[in-house]
């Protein structure tokens, strides 16, 4: 159908870019989620007043374009602090915090969705805070939070297209590199878009399915 000069080599090159996209996403989502859970539980536990500074800081990550966060973090760490660090590390660091900022909200929402009465019942049975948290709150909150969390993870994958700004060659950047050489913008962009779509769409559908299944009972 397409008359293209794309070679196997180029496909490998694209696959490397795609791999980079997935690696950056995986690392960021992993650390972001851990941080997000810590922040979310903390925020819920200490109440809005004491958590205000943390809330403010996390809110910044949700109020400033990711592109600017990346540029700023890179400039700050490397230029202002003078630390030699790779763009990859900066990208993962920023994206992790970015993920954590959203994840904390999801976690807090999940915990708040667990009825107080249920938790009181658990505590009245003699469970400790930790037991209540792990055996009552966590399973129930996960049900509420997981679909949003899946959405977040996919969002981070799509947003990772911006890490080109710190010299990380991910999927969209490697596509652009190939466009430069092969001059087949439409075809190559289709491949690139299709890749994102093929990963994102089924997982998004799965999230939607979970949401539906769990909200029905």
């Amino acid at each position: 159908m397409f008359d293209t000069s794309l070679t196997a080599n180029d496909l490998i090159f694209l696959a490397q870019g795609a791999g980079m996209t997935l690696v950056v996403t995986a690392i960021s989502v992993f650390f972001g989620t851990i941080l997000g859970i810590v922040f979310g539980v903390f925020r819920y536990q200490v109440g809005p007043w004491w958590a205000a500074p943390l809330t403010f800081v996390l809110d910044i990550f949700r109020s400033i374009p990711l592109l600017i966060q990346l540029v700023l973090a890179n400039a700050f760490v490397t230029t202002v602090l003078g630390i030699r660090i790779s763009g990859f590390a900066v990208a993962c660091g920023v994206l992790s915090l970015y993920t954590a900022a959203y994840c904390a909200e999801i976690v807090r929402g999940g915990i708040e969705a667990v009825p107080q009465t249920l938790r009181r019942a658990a505590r009245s049975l003699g469970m400790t805070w930790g037991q209540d948290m792990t055996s009552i709150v966590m399973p129930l909150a996960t049900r509420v939070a997981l679909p949003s969390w899946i959405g977040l993870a996919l969002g981070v994958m799509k947003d990772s297209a911006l890490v080109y700004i710190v010299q990380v060659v991910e999927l969209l950047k490697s596509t652009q590199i190939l466009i430069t050489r092969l001059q087949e913008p439409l075809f190559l962009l289709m491949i690139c878009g299709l890749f994102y779509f093929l990963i994102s769409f089924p997982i998004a559908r799965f999230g939607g399915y979970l949401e539906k299944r769990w909200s029905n009972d």
Partner: protein
Amino acid sequence: MKTTLFTAGVLAAAALALPAQADKLDDIIASGTLRCAVVLDFPPMGSRDANNTPIGFDVDYCNDLATALGVTAEIVETTFPERIPALMSGSVDIAVASTSDTLERAKTVGFSIPYYAFENAVVAREGIEMATWEDMKGKVVGATAGTYEAIWLEGKVKEWGEGEFRPYQNQADVFLALSQGQLDATVATVEVSEANVKSGNFPGIKIVDKAPMVPDYVALITLREEYGLINYMNLFINQQVRTGRYAELYKKWVGEGAPADLTVQGVYR
């Protein structure tokens, strides 16, 4: 983040407390790698081959410098607008990226003596009536953001008071836009223009005229305070010309004929 910051602060303070610091030249030799920012959508100076390996005049130039230093070169691709931030942020040691030696930039980065000189051409799409560079007046024109020619062209559009200027993120997008008809004309180096017209990758474009700029001398850059390295680069450029390597690279990447004269009549550098 917070702990990193804290640690970083302590480290920075500790570093400042030490009496003498090794400079970048020492660092490079010690680390064994020379990290060069190269723009790879700028043939023949920088591009990629069929295996997507970086090639071009600037790539060879970086390799030569690394060899001279006795280290290996690492090519870091940057876009034009990103090359100086990449340098400032320490992602690279130097940029071999056809950087024009403007006085504005010299406030921020340290320039070597020129290692190449470009002339710029006006490239238009075929449907457009254009005989001289002045016909760009009132047209939609574009160039690569942050380049010498972009700054010149944007200035011209402001001066003319009509038409529109569009800064794209890279050279490829400029030619793509031109080829698609989104732009009426662009200004690019003669080398790049000829390479792009010849490649056939961008149908429907033609070289119209030379752009009336003084030759665009480009230099290697590094951090402003790295005198040792700048001094080394100056001598290296001189050696490249002296040994004939400069002419050799010119022949390899640009073509027949004499490479551009890197001296300016009547003044020392």
